[in-house]
C-alpha cells in the first residue's frame, strides 16, 4: 500500500473554488452589519438566493416568493444536468464539513470501511419529504436543517459572538476593534443550544466524512433527487482497476466510487478525490451526451412505505402545529414581538427560514432566536428582546436583509408607522408610582417625534412623610410603536417597569386593541 497518491489539478481547482465561496460567505456574513447610510448591500442574501430548498418550501407553504429567490432555479437546473456540484464546490457549510472531514485522520483501512454508501444515506430524503409535506400544509420549518440557514444562524448567534468575545478580551487597539470586531459584544438567547448543535454537526465529520451532507442535509437530498441522472459520469476501467479500493478512502459523499458496486450519482459531490487518488488511473469522469440513458445505479430506492411514513409524519406534525392555540389566533403570546415589517404570524412562519440574517444585522442586538415563544413551530424565528436591545427608530436593516420576505422591505417612513407592539407600565414597579421617586427615563428616550410617553405630575408622600411632586409616566397608545427603548433603558433591570407586549401589533389585526 505504499503507492503514492497524487493531487490532480482538478482537485486543486475544486479546493480553490470551495475556498473562494467559503470566504465569500464569511465576507457577506461580516457585511451583514449596520452601515451609517442605513443600507445593507443586497448581496448579503446571495447564498440563500441560490438555495432551491428554501424556494420550494416557501413556495409550497406560502404560494409566494421573495424577489431574487428564483435564482435558485439555476442551481436546480445545473444540478439536473450535471449533478450535485453545488455540494462539492459551492456550499460553504459543505466546505466546512469537507475541511473537518479531511482533519479526521485514522488509517486508510478505517476510511475505506466507512467510505461507501449505506442505508442511512436515505435518511436525508425522508427528512426532506417530512419538511415538504409539512410545507404543503403551510408549516415551513425547513430552516431548522437547511444547511445555509443552519450555518448562518450558528455563525450569527453562537460562533461569531463567542469568537468576538475571545478576541475582544485580548485586544485593546481601538482601530482593530472598530474594523474587525463588533462595535458591541453581541449576546443572544439560545446561543448555547445553537452553538452545541453546530459543534456536533461539525464533530460528526470525525465519525463519517461529511456526515451532515451524507445523512442529514435536506438540500443535499433535493439536489440528489434532481441530479441522480447527470451528464457528468464516473467510469471505471475494469482492465486498469486492481481493486485496491483507494478511491473510497477520500470519497466525500459515499457514492460507491470503487468496490464492485455501482456508482451512485445522487450521492456524488464531484469532488474528484477518487480520480485523483486512483494509483492506476482507472477512475475517470466524462461528459455524457444523453440524459435518456441513466447510469446503472441512479435509483434512490427509498421505498414506498418509508416515503409514505415520512410524508405522514411531516403532515401530521404540520396539523398539530396548525391546531396550536397560537396558530389558531385564539391566543397571542404577549412576549412574541417580531421585528418591524414581519408579516402576519401565519404568513410569517410560512416564509421565515430562521437564517439569522436579521439577528446579525440588528445594530442594538435586539433580535434573538425564539425558544418556544411562537410555539415549537416558531423555534429560532426572530423575536425582539427589549432588555438586550430595542428597535432603533431610524433603522430598517432587518427588513433589508431578510432573504424570504418574511420581514418585508420597508422605507424608514413606513417603518416608523408600524407598531411592533405597545408599551405598558407596571405601576407596582415604576418608581414614581410605587416608590415616590422621580425617574421618567422612559419619557426621555421615547423616539417618536411627539413622545408616546407623557406624564402626569402627582403629589405623593415619601417614606419620611414629605409631600413631593413626581412625574408619573403614561403611554399614548396611538403614538407608541412598541420600539422598546423605554424597556431597554428602564432603571429596573430584569423585569423592567415598562414593557412592550405584542398587543396592538400592526401585523396581526386580531391582536389589536385600539378602536
Amino acid at each position, binding site marked *: 500500500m505504499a503507492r503514492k497518491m497524487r493531487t490532480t489539478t482538478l482537485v486543486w481547482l475544486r479546493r480553490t473554488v470551495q475556498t473562494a465561496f467559503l470566504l465569500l460567505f464569511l465576507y457577506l456574513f461580516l457585511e451583514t452589519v449596520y452601515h*451609517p447610510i442605513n443600507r445593507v448591500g443586497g448581496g448579503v442574501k446571495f447564498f440563500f438566493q441560490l438555495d432551491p430548498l428554501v424556494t420550494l418550501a416557501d413556495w409550497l407553504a406560502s404560494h409566494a416568493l421573495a424577489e431574487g429567490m428564483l435564482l435558485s432555479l439555476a442551481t436546480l437546473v445545473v444540478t439536473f444536468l450535471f449533478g450535485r456540484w453545488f455540494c462539492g464546490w459551492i456550499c460553504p457549510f459543505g466546505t466546512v464539513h469537507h475541511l473537518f472531514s479531511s482533519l479526521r485522520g485514522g488509517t486508510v483501512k478505517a476510511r475505506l470501511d466507512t467510505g461507501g454508501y449505506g442505508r442511512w444515506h436515505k435518511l436525508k430524503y425522508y427528512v426532506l419529504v417530512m419538511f415538504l409535506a409539512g410545507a404543503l400544509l403551510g408549516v415551513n420549518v425547513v430552516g431548522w436543517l437547511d444547511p445555509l440557514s443552519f450555518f448562518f444562524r450558528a455563525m450569527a448567534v453562537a460562533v461569531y459572538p463567542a469568537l468576538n468575545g475571545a478576541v475582544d478580551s485580548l485586544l485593546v487597539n481601538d482601530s482593530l476593534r*472598530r474594523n474587525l470586531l463588533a462595535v458591541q459584544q453581541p449576546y443572544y438567547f439560545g446561543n448555547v443550544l445553537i452553538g452545541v448543535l453546530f459543534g456536533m454537526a461539525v464533530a460528526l465529520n470525525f465519525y463519517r466524512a461529511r456526515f451532515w451532507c451524507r445523512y442529514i442535509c435536506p438540500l443535499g437530498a433535493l439536489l440528489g433527487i434532481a441530479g441522480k441522472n447527470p451528464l457528468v459520469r464516473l467510469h471505471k476501467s475494469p482492465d486498469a482497476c486492481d481493486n485496491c479500493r483507494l478511491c473510497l478512502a477520500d470519497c466525500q459523499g459515499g457514492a460507491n466510487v470503487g468496490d464492485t458496486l455501482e456508482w451512485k450519482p445522487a450521492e456524488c459531490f464531484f469532488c474528484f478525490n477518487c480520480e485523483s487518488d486512483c494509483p492506476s488511473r482507472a477512475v475517470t469522469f466524462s461528459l455524457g451526451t444523453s440524459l435518456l440513458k441513466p447510469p446503472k445505479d441512479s435509483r434512490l430506492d427509498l421505498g414506498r412505505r418509508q416515503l409514505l411514513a415520512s410524508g405522514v409524519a411531516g403532515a401530521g406534525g404540520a396539523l398539530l402545529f396548525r391546531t396550536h392555540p397560537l396558530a389558531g389566533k385564539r391566543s397571542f403570546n404577549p412576549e412574541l414581538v417580531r421585528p418591524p415589517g414581519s408579516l402576519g404570524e401565519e404568513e410569517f412562519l410560512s416564509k421565515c427560514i430562521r437564517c439569522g440574517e436579521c439577528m446579525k444585522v440588528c445594530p442594538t442586538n435586539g433580535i434573538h432566536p425564539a425558544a418556544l415563544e411562537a410555539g415549537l413551530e416558531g423555534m429560532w424565528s426572530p423575536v425582539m428582546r427589549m432588555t438586550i436591545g430595542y428597535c*432603533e*427608530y*431610524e433603522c430598517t436593516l432587518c427588513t433589508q436583509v431578510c432573504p424570504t420576505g418574511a420581514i418585508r422591505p420597508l422605507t424608514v417612513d413606513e417603518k416608523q408607522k408600524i407598531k411592533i407592539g405597545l408599551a405598558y407600565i407596571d405601576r407596582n414597579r415604576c418608581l414614581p408610582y410605587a416608590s415616590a421617586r*422621580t425617574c421618567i*427615563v422612559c419619557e426621555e428616550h421615547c423616539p417618536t417625534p411627539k413622545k408616546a410617553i407623557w406624564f402626569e405630575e402627582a403629589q405623593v408622600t415619601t417614606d419620611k412623610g414629605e409631600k413631593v411632586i413626581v412625574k408619573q409616566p403614561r403611554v399614548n397608545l396611538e403614538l407608541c410603536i412598541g420600539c422598546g427603548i423605554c424597556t431597554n433603558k428602564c*432603571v429596573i433591570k430584569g423585569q423592567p417597569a415598562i414593557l412592550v407586549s405584542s398587543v396592538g401589533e400592526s401585523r396581526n389585526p386580531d391582536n389589536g386593541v385600539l378602536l
Partner: protein
Amino acid sequence: MKRREFLALAAPALLPAAAAPALSIAHYKSSPAAPDGIAEEARRLTRAAVDALGGMARFVSKGNVVWVKPNIAWDRRPEQAACTNPDVVAAVVEMCFQAGARKVAVGDNPCNSAQRTFPRSGIQSAAEKAGAQCYFMDERKFRKMAIKGARVLKEWEIYRDVVEADRVINVGIVKQHSLTNAVLGMKNLMGVAGGARNRFHQDIANCVADLAGFIRPQLVVLDAVRVLAANGPAGGNLADVKRRDTIVAGVDQVAVDAFGATLLGIRPADIGYVVEGHARGLGNMNYAALSPARVEV
C-alpha cells in the same frame, strides 16, 4: 477667609488672563436657511465666542491632549437639533490644534448606539476632517473613581481617557428636557459617565452637579444655533426646532447654563442642577453679574 476664597478675590488682580471675560455670547445677525449658510454661521459664531474669551490659547497649550465632549447622544440628523451642531464641534477642534494641541479626542457615551449617532449626527466626519480622533467609548475604560466632594455619586464609573486628558472642553446643545427642564452644558457631562447612569434621574440635580464638580471642564461651548424647544432631548420633529443663532462660551459652567436656559424661555432658577451648581460654588447662575462679552457676527 479661606485660601480658595482669597484666591478667587485676588485672582483678577494677579492674573492678566483672568481679566478676560468668564462668559461670552455670540449672536448671528442673519439667520441663513441653507445648510452651507448654517455651517458657516456655526463656525463663525464658535470662533467669535471663544475669541471673545481671549482665544483658545487661554485654555489649550502646546502639546496638550484635549477631550472634546459634544452631545452625540441621539440617532438624529443635525437639523433635528438633538446633538451638537457638527460645525461647532469642528470649529472647536480646529481652534484646539491652532492653539498647539497635540491630540484632540472627540467622544460621548450615547443613548442610542454609537455606531448610529456618531455618523448620523455629522459629528464624526466633521471632527475627523478637522483632525480629531473620534472614539466610540470602550466599556472597559470606564473606571470606578472616587468623586471628591460628591453628594450622591461618591464613587462612579467615569471614562478614564477624559480624566487623563490635559484639557476637557464641553460642547453641549440647548434642548428641552422634561425631568430637568433643559439639557445644557452641565447635563451633557453625563456622557462621560458609565454604569447605570439612568439611576441619576432619581436625584438628577445632585448627580449632574457632582459630575460637573468632578470634571470641571476648562471651557464650555454651548450650541444654540438651533435649539430643541419641545419633545427633547431626543426630538425628531422639525417643528420643535427653533433658531436662536447663538453660541455661548465660558469658563463658568453654571453661568453658561444659566444663560442657555433663557434661550428656551426658562428661568435659571427652574433648573435644579444650575441652582445646585451655584450653591456649591461651581459657578454663578447670575450670569449678568459676570458682564458677559456680547458679540454680534
